[in-house]
C-alpha cells in the first residue's frame, strides 16, 4: 500500500493538485508567528524607557516580520511538493505564492482586529511609547516632528478593509516571486522529450 502510494505521489495527477491546505497552513502559521512577534515586540516597546535610539524593538520586529512574510510563498511551495505532489508548474507555484501572501494579509488583519478587542488601548500605548522615544532623540525639531508624524500615521488604526486592500497586493506579489523560486528549488524537474 505504501509502495503504491509513493508511486502515485511521483506521478503528475489532476487529483493531486489541491494546494489550499499548503496555502492555508503556511499562510496561517506565518501570519500567526508574525502577529506574535509584532505584539511581543510592541509590548517590549511599550514597557521600555525612551532611550532615543534609532533602532527600537518595534523596528526590529518589522524587519523580522518582513523577512518571514516574504518567504511564505517559498515555504508553501516546499510544503506542497513534500505533501501533495513534487510535480508543479511555474504558474501554479506563482499562484500558491500569491494566495499564501493573501492569506497572510487576511489572517494578520483578523488577528490584529481580535487583539484590539483584547487590549483596545494597545495602539494608543504604542504610539505614545514610540513618540516618547523619538522625542528623546538628539535631532533637529523639524526632523523629530516629521518622524513623529510618520510613526503616528503608520501606527494609527486601519479598518479591516484597509488592511486587506493595503496588504494583499504587495504581500501577494512578493510571495508570488518566492513561490516561483520554490518551484525552481523544490519541484521535480520536467524531463526533456526528444
Amino acid at each position, binding site marked *: 500500500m505504501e509502495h503504491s502510494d509513493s508511486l502515485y505521489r511521483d506521478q503528475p495527477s489532476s487529483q493531486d493538485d489541491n494546494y489550499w491546505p499548503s496555502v492555508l497552513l503556511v499562510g496561517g502559521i506565518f501570519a500567526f508567528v508574525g502577529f506574535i512577534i509584532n505584539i511581543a515586540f510592541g509590548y517590549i516597546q511599550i514597557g521600555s524607557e525612551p532611550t532615543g535610539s534609532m533602532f527600537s524593538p518595534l523596528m526590529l520586529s518589522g524587519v523580522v516580520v518582513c523577512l518571514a512574510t516574504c518567504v511564505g510563498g517559498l515555504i508553501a511551495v516546499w510544503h506542497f511538493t513534500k505533501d501533495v505532489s513534487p510535480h508543479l508548474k511555474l*504558474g501554479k507555484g506563482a499562484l500558491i505564492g500569491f494566495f499564501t501572501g493573501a492569506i497572510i494579509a487576511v489572517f494578520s488583519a483578523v488577528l490584529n482586529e481580535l487583539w484590539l478587542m483584547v487590549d483596545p488601548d494597545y495602539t494608543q500605548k504604542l504610539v505614545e511609547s514610540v513618540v516618547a522615544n523619538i522625542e528623546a532623540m538628539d535631532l533637529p525639531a523639524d526632523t523629530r516632528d516629521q518622524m513623529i508624524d510618520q510613526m503616528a500615521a503608520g501606527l494609527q488604526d486601519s479598518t479591516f478593509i484597509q488592511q486587506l486592500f*493595503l496588504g494583499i*497586493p504587495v504581500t501577494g506579489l512578493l510571495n508570488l516571486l518566492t513561490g516561483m523560486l520554490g518551484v525552481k528549488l523544490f519541484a521535480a524537474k520536467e524531463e526533456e522529450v526528444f
Partner: protein
Amino acid sequence: MRYKLLYFLILAGLIFLFVISLGNGIWDRHLDYSDWNYRVFYGICHQMQDRSFHIYDVPMAVNTRCFGIFSGLLAAWLMVPYLTNVTREKRWPGLLLSISVALQVIDYSAGQLSIWNSSNFSRFFLGIILGVALVCMIADQFNKK
C-alpha cells in the same frame, strides 16, 4: 518564451510596485505618511527618512534597501526574455542569490551591532543585487523546453 501571460502580469505588478515606492515626490505632492502609497509599505519597510532617497525633498515610500530590491527586480524582470537562455542549467544564479542574501545579512547585522554604518547608496546597490539575483534564479523557468 513560456508563460507569457504570467510574465506580463508580474511585469505590471513590478512596475506598479516601483512607481508607488517612489512616494509623493514624483506627483509633486507633499509628504503625508497616511497616504495609501506610504501605508501600503508600512508593514514591510521601516521608511526612515534619513535612510530613504528623496525626490524634490520628499522621501520615497520605502528605504534605499527596499527601493534597491524593487529596482533590481524590475530591471532584471525586463531582461527575462534574454536571461532565460543565459541562466539555463547554470549554477551561477544560485551562487549569486546565496551571496546576495549573505551580504544583506552581514550588512544589516553590522549596522545593528554598530560595526559599520553603510551608506544609502551601498544599501541601494546591495538591494539591487538581491532583486537581480532572485530574478536570475527563476528566469530559466520561462525557457521554452
